[in-house]
Each structure stands twice: as structure tokens, then as C-alpha cells.
């Protein structure tokens, strides 16, 4: 299906009370927009809105100041109802320089609010952003509400008492701006003040200057003469389930999920990885957590990382490796060794735009084919995917469970969006988790390396160091009976079938596919996997509000599929599959279930917008209506002919 976008038609800032708002802080890489966003997020969570955030930073580490390719942005969508995406269009754009305005203006709704630092709109910066005329003066922003403030000047005045020097003083610009935006949405500044105090504990004058800037920005909102229609907006609190919450990114949730998995499996972990964007942050998070049953190893390359993980698994620890697409490709031979020797292994793929180096900092879900088929030989492997930042926690636990219970490599698919995006997360009660303790084999009397569980078909896990169970495993085909090398043709058939049956058997050990919104049958099911969850969910919700009979089905288990998935999908007249690739899941669904599923595909390095999926739902329904109209006419004509 062709990608189109529907304007959700919301002009949020016309009222004093608004249901939801999208704010984007954009500036130079050095302007501290990520920190600004993080503080605003925290204040918003504490205020009681539901929210979702998305940091969008450039691939360049330190781009030249003022360059369009150096713009770093942080987007937050918050509101009074469940928020599952970081928002389609912007209501408020904070642009710290002309480049930030130029690269983000197209996403601002008509009537949206622009806050600009006019002090940064110098001839030089305008030229860098390719503006022939100053947009603040040529009338090109007339469709918007614009607050043109010389923030640089305001900040220098506010922090003057701290004698920081010009450059250091200007670094407080982001906090001044944050203060103003906090005033705009009535957020509490105290948590930010506390965190600034902690962050700059060793440089109290810097902390004080930043706090002064924050307060000055807030005071500006209270006292300055503002453009008409700009005032404090009230966003009602969201109704959320009672409990204790925190803000969490996908990376943190995934790391903590792996730790939780190790506790539930009662097994040590070795996390072996090689740095790659956007997967490295998982290594960073786990490297800090060695007080748990986890060790981390930065290997010399991707291949060494997967191999060290496999070595650890052979030795009785659960090996985990992590990368993004290009790195996962390098690990393929190792993954197949784990499959052949039936050792547990978790591979985390934080997908990014491909092929090759592609778009390293942008999101995509184009590695599903590789996860399913990207190995030599007949090498089946369970594949599961995360759908939201918080979901990363549960899926990581599930990956550990499947790998250890079935003695198999497991591919866990995340992506660049989920890794960096954050949302409020209800902290689970860990005492309620069901344990799945690993059983290393200890009975030398019954031991042989080919011993397996009749139900799961999992091979025995025998640790070196255990007396009387000395044995050899390896990549050469192993005898089903003894585990020794076997070139026997019949045995290879048995072992190939066994590897397939073992992975397929997992379908009986995972939950049946549920419909997450809507009925279990009807005219249209929108079927997704991975990080498209949020946008699909909102689009289906809006369509249902309009009375459209549409359901949302989100697939966590991609290999094997849940046992009932085929039947469930066959209960819908049509199936629409939005994916951030050229149609990888849709092809699987068509092949496995022989259903005429339709793809909706986007590979722009950016997540789907709600409006894009909503447009596709409308298109699909309209197309079905048209066909039915034709059929009605034909039926009528047929009846007339008969009579």
C-alpha cells in the first residue's frame, strides 16, 4: 500500500486546557538539548502526564557549530491519555539556532509555537542553515506563534553574578529555555534543580548559574509580554494504573531484563560485544552492573564477541552477544555453531537503517529476514521482538528463558528507536516472577553429550569441570545416539529434523496470539511487530473511535509464530502489515498462512506517524467498500438474470 499521511487535525494551542502536546527541543549538538529534554521529561512524568520521548541525534560526534547536519533534537509527546508514540506533528518547537529551525519547521502544526533564540540568528548561522533571508523577519513564520527572544542576552544577564566567562555562561542557555517551557506547561522545577545540584556537585558555581538561568527563563514567561494566544497550558493528568513508576529507555529495560533473566534462570551471564551504533549503550549499561551475576567483555570484533559468548555457554554460563545489523551479519557463522552444538545463546540486534553502514543512528526493522534466514544450512532459531521501551524488559527475560530451556540461540530484535526512546514504566514486583532455574547435568552415570529432554528436545547442558562427564562437542554433525562425529546420511536427516522440531515445538510453550485492541475477527486487522506498536495502536484506536471495524494484532514471537496466529488472521477479511522495511513480515505471513496480507512500508529512518497508519486504514477500508459495492451490483445483476 502507498504511504500517505493524514493530518490528525489538531490545533492544540488554541485552548487553555489541551489533551496532549508534542514539544521538540532542537539545537546544536553542543546546546545540551538531550539534557534539557531529559529534565523536562522527568518533570512531566512527576506532573502525572503519560508520555513518550525520542532523542534524535546526528551521526557526527561534533559537527561544526550551526550546521544543519549537527542538529540534535529531543522530542516528547505528553498528554492525559495513553501515549505510545513520540508524536506525529509538533505543537511546540524550540529552535536554538537557524539550522534547528530549518530542519524541524516542516513538522510544526499550523498555529504551533516556535521559541527561538534570536541571538543565534547571526548572518553566519543563517548562511549555514541556507537561509537567504532571516526567517524571523521575512514573514515566512506568519502561520505560527513565534516567541523571538534573545536568549543569549537574557542568559548572560541572569548568570552574571557567577563570573563564569562568556562561553561557560552561554552554556546555561538550555536551562533558561527549559525554565520557559516549564512555565508554559506548569511543570515543577525542583527535581531539575536537585539534579543540577547533583550533576555539578564539584562545581557549585556552575550548578548555581544553571539554576539561576532556569529560574530566569521561568520568570520571563511570567513577566514578559507574550504573543497573543501564548499562555500557560494545562494538560490534565493521565489515568494510569496505580503503582510505582519510573522513566525507562529501551536500552536500560533490556539490560535490566537480561539481569532479571539471569536471576530467574539462576545462571551467570557473559555479555560479549563489540561497539556499534546504536547497540553500544547496552554494553555500557551492563558493564556498570557487575554486582549482579554478569560479566561483560569488549571483544576485538563482532565474531570474537559471539564466539566468546558461545565459549561461555559451553562452560556453563549463559553467553549473550549484541550488535546492530552489520555486526549480526558477521556473527552468523558463530550463531550456527551454537545451533549445531545446541548451546544457549542470546543475540540482541538493535536494528538500524541498512544496508551496509546505512543510517547508523536512524531506526529501521529491516533485519527480520536476516534473523529468520540469515544463516548457512538449515538453521532454525527462535526470534522474538520488543515493541516498546518497557517491553524490552519482559522480552529480554523471555529470551533468556527460551535459550536456556531449549538450549538454542535466540535472536532478540530491538531497534534504534526503542533503544533510545523512553516512557514511564510501572516497576514490576520482582517477587511475583516465575523462576526457570537452569539445570546443569550432574549425574555422570547417565551422561552422554547427546542426552536430551524428550519434551523440549533440548540437549543436556554439561559443564566442563564436572568429573566423569568429559566429552567433546563440535561443528561436525553429531550422532543423535552418541553425540560423536557422524557422517551418516540418515543421522543428518534425523538431526536436521530435530533442530527444526525443537524450535517449532516452542510454539506450544508461548502464549497464544492475542488481539491487543479490537475483536478477534472482522474486516481489518493491522498486524505489526517491533517498535511500530505505538503508532499502530494509536491509529487503530482513532479509527475505532470513528466507528471503523479494525483490530490491532502485535506479534512478539516471530519464530516460531504463536500456534493460533494463522487461524486468528484468517478470521479477518483483510490484513494490513505496517513495517519499517520493504515488506519482510508481510511476506512471512503470506507464505506461512496463504493469506493476502498487504504491506505498508516506510524506510525513512524515522518511526511511522499515527497519521500514516490511519490513512492506510482508511484506504484499505475504502478499497474493500469499493469491491463490496461492485460485488453487490454483480450479485443483484445475477439475481435479476436468474429471475
Amino acid at each position, binding site marked *: 500500500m502507498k504511504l500517505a499521511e493524514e493530518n490528525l487535525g489538531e490545533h492544540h494551542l488554541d485552548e487553555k486546557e489541551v489533551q496532549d502536546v508534542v514539544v521538540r527541543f532542537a539545537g546544536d549538538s553542543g546546546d545540551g538539548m538531550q539534557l534539557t529534554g531529559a529534565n523536562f521529561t522527568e518533570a512531566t512524568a512527576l506532573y502525572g502526564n503519560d508520555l513518550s520521548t525520542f532523542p534524535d541525534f546526528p551521526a557526527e560526534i561534533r559537527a561544526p557549530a550551526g550546521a544543519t547536519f549537527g542538529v540534535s533534537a529531543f522530542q516528547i509527546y505528553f498528554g492525559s491519555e495513553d501515549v505510545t508514540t513520540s508524536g506525529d506533528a509538533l505543537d511546540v518547537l524550540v529552535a536554538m539556532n537557524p539550522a534547528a529551525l530549518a530542519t524541524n519547521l516542516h513538522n510544526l502544526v499550523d498555529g504551533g509555537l516556535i521559541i527561538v533564540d534570536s541571538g543565534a540568528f547571526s548572518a553566519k548561522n543563517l548562511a549555514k542553515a541556507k537561509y537567504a533571508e532571516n526567517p524571523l523577519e521575512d514573514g515566512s513564520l506568519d502561520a505560527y506563534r513565534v516567541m523571538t527572544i534573545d536568549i543569549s542576552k537574557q542568559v548572560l544577564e541572569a548568570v552574571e553574578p557567577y563570573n563564569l566567562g562568556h562561553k561557560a555562561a552561554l552554556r546555561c542557555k538550555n536551562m533558561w529555555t527549559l525554565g520557559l517551557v516549564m512555565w508554559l506547561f506548569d511543570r515543577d522545577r525542583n527535581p531539575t534543580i536537585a539534579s543540577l545540584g547533583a550533576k555539578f556537585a564539584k562545581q557549585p558555581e556552575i550548578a548555581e548559574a544553571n539554576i539561576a538561568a532556569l529560574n530566569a527563563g521561568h520568570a520571563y514567561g511570567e513577566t514578559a509580554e507574550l504573543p497573543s494566544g501564548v499562555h500557560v497550558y494545562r494538560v490534565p493528568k493521565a489515568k494510569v494504573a496505580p503503582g510505582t513508576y519510573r522513566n525507562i529507555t529501551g536500552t536500560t529495560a533490556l539490560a535490566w531484563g537480561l539481569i532479571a533473566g539471569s536471576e530467574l534462570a539462576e545462571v551467570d551471564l557473559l555479555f560479549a560485544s563489540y561497539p556499534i551504533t546504536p547497540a553500544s549503550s547496552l554494553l555500557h549499561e551492563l558493564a556498570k552492573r557487575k554486582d549482579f551475576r554478569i560479566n561483560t567483555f569488549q571483544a576485538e570484533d563482532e565474531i*570474537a564477541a559471539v564466539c566468546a559468548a558461545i565459549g561461555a*555457554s559451553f*562452560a556453563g554460563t549463559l553467553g549473550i552477544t549484541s550488535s546492530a545489523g552489520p555486526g549480526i551479519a558477521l556473527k552468523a557463522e558463530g550463531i550456527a555453531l551454537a545451533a549445531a552444538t545446541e548451546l544457549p545463546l542470546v543475540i540482541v540486534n538493535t536494528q538500524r537503517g541498512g544496508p551496509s553502514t546505512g543510517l547508523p543512528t536512524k531506526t529501521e526493522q529491516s533485519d527480520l529476514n536476516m534473523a529468520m534466514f540469515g544463516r548457512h544450512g538449515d538453521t532454525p532459531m527462535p526470534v522474538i521482538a520488543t515493541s516498546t521501551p518497557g517491553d524490552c524488559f519482559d522480552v529480554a527475560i523471555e529470551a533468556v528463558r527460551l535459550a536456556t530451556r531449549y538450549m538454542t540461540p535466540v535472536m532478540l530484535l530491538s531497534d534504534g528507536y526503542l533503544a533510545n526512546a523512553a516512557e514511564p514504566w510501572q516497576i514490576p514486583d520482582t517477587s511475583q516472577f516465575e523462576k526457570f532455574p537452569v539445570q546443569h547435568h550432574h549425574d555422570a552415570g547417565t551422561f552422554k553429550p547427546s542426552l536430551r529432554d524428550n519434551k523440549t528436545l533440548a540437549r543436556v547442558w554439561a559443564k566442563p569441570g564436572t568429573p566423569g562427564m568429559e566429552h567433546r562437542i563440535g*561443528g561436525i554433525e553429531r550422532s543423535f545416539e552418541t553425540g560423536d562425529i557422524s557422517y551418516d546420511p540418515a543421522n543428518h536427516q534425523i538431526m536436521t529434523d530435530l533442530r527444526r522440531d525443537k524450535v517449532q515445538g516452542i510454539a506450544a510453550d508461548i502464549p497464544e496470539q492475542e488481539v491487543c485492541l479490537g475483536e478477534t475477527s472482522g474486516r481489518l486487522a493491522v498486524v505489526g511487530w517491533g517498535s511500530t506498536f505505538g503508532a499502530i495502536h494509536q491509529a487503530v484506536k482513532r479509527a475505532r473511535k470513528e466507528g471503523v471495524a479494525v483490530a490491532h494484532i502485535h506479534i512478539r514471537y516471530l519464530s516460531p509464530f504463536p500456534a493460533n496466529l494463522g487461524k486468528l488472521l484468517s478470521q479477518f477479511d483483510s490484513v494490513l502489515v505496517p513495517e519499517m522495511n520493504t515488506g519482510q513480515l508481510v511476506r512471512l505471513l503470506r507464505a506461512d498462512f496463504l493469506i493476502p496480507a498487504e504491506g505498508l512500508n516506510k524506510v525513512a529512518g524515522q518511526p511511522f506517524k499515527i497519521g500514516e497508519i490511519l490513512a492506510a486504514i482508511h484506504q484499505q477500508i475504502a478499497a474493500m467498500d469499493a469491491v463490496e459495492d461492485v460485488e453487490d451490483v454483480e450479485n443483484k445483476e445475477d439475481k435479476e438474470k436468474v429471475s
Partner: protein
Amino acid sequence: MNKPLGKLTLKDYTSDQEVRWCPGCGDYAILKTVQKLMPELDVPRENLVFVSGIGCSSRFPYYMNTYGFHTIHGRAPAIATGVKLANPELDVWVITGDGDGFSIGGNHMLHVLRRNVNLQILLFNNEIYGLTKGQYSPTSQPGTRSPSSPEGSIDAPLSPCAVALGSGATFVSRSIDTEAKHLTAVIKRAHEHHGASFVEILQNCPIYNDGVFEQVKNKKTAADFRIELTHRQPMIFGKEGEKGIRLNRETLELEVIQSAGNEDQLLIHDETNKVQAQLLATMGGEHFPVAVGVLYREEKATFVDEAYSQLQKARGTTGSLDKLLRSGHTWKVSN
């Protein structure tokens, strides 16, 4: 089999698998030497782990009645590092060849050596690819005629010991497949060393590269083309010990001299001298003997020891998952 450690013999370290090397392969001799040595090492058999890559030599673990892992081409050092990180108590041996260890797996060899992971690496160097039927390898002499180099190979060969030294190896040694006594002594020293121990074993491939080490191995010529290094002893060789090695201090090159009358000029072997070890590693050819024995050793912190000391520090307090999930800013929502 629950015999006490001291009572184990070669047979206890021999697996029930049929050995499938070609008749006359040097690997047989190495296997026997290693199996024979095992009972002397004072390591519980269940703690021995042999890890290999791909190639003729890499079939080795299948024939050892210990824990063993025959993995993928070139990756044995990486897999062995994972084994050792998971359980530092294990006594890990990497079995590899010139192609496995220095061609497809060169990168891992470099890093396992520089990290100084506490394990033994036995590199069977036959200067040829055997299992794929005789192509030239990264240690083949220039001009080696093979199915993939019918006009003779044009690659410059590398010296495994020199590369190991360049990688920062803390134990570098060389021996010969059929010299059981010498090989046993060298492997024993390698095992005693705390760190990554590199043993290059000159190994004859009777099918594809027969006699490539003939000069060094043949009893008739060995005395003139092999020098056995002994720590703190002068470097002399020849049937009667009539020749010796001297360092030309102007050109910084080694020279062969008459030993008699030149005793004060003879180079004294010092296992801790890295510069000298580099000269010895590449010594050979028409005019020089090949050095065997321990070329170099140094005591240095090992990777896994360091990793575990960091772990122990971190685990001074056991992490609580519940506390971790509730760390940082949280907020309560009540009914």
C-alpha cells in the same frame, strides 16, 4: 573412571574416537606427547578443556578424553577466552594450525596474546593447508607450488613466533612434532607459565608438504640447522658444538661463528630479553639454525585475573534487582 589423579595414565586421556589423520602425519606424535604429559600436570581431568578451530590439527580435541570443543575456522582463541572468562578454574588449551591461527584467525590470535589470557596455544605449523587439499598457507615458503599457486606462491610468509612476540605474547616457544622429549619439556614450561603461552610446533605434512622441515628434523642435518635454547647458556650448535651465535653489535644482526676460542663472544640465551627473542624467532634459512625451546617469557597480569578482581570489587555488595529497578527517580500513582 574415578581413579585418583596420580594414577591416571595416557590411556585415561585417550578418547574412544578413531583417529583420522593421514598415516605418517606429525599430528599423531603431538597427540601422543600431549596425552602422555597430561597425567604429569596435576590438573583434574575434568578441568581440562581443549578448544580448536578448523583444519587437520583442530580435530585434536576429539581424540582427547577431556572436555573439548571443535569450533569454527580461526575462532578458537575467542571461544577459549569465553570459556576462561566463564570459569577461570578451567585449564584451557587452544589447538590450531598455521592457516587457522594466522590466516583466518589472525585477529583473534593477536588479541588473545596481547590480553594475556591464561591458556596454552599449540600451533601446529606445517606450512600448508592440509584439510582443503594442499593450498599454500601464510607460513609457506615463497615459491611453494600448490593447487592454488601452480607457478609458486608469491606471498611473503610470516613467522608465527615473531608475530606472537609482536602481539605482546608473554610466553613464546618452538618445538618439533617428533621430538617427544623436547616437545614435552616445552609444553610443560608453557603450562607452568601464568598467561597466554604460545607454542609453535614444526609439524610435517607427509601428503602436501612432506619434508618441509627436513633440515631441522633429519638426524644428519639437525645438528647444523637446529639450536636448542637453554636459559643463561651460550648459544652453540653443530655435531660437536663447534658453532655458535654472536650478535654483531654494529649491524644488530646475528652471525654464526666458531665457538672454540670465541667463548666470550657467544650470545647467552636470556628468556626475558624480548629484542633477542625477536632475532631468534626469525632465525633460520640456509645459513642459520632454527631456534627451538623457550624464546621468551615475561610475568604479567593476566586478563582473566584482572577481570575477576574487578568482578570481586563490584560484588562486594550483591546487587538487588528490586533496588536497581527502583533506583533514580520514581513516582507513585495511587488510586
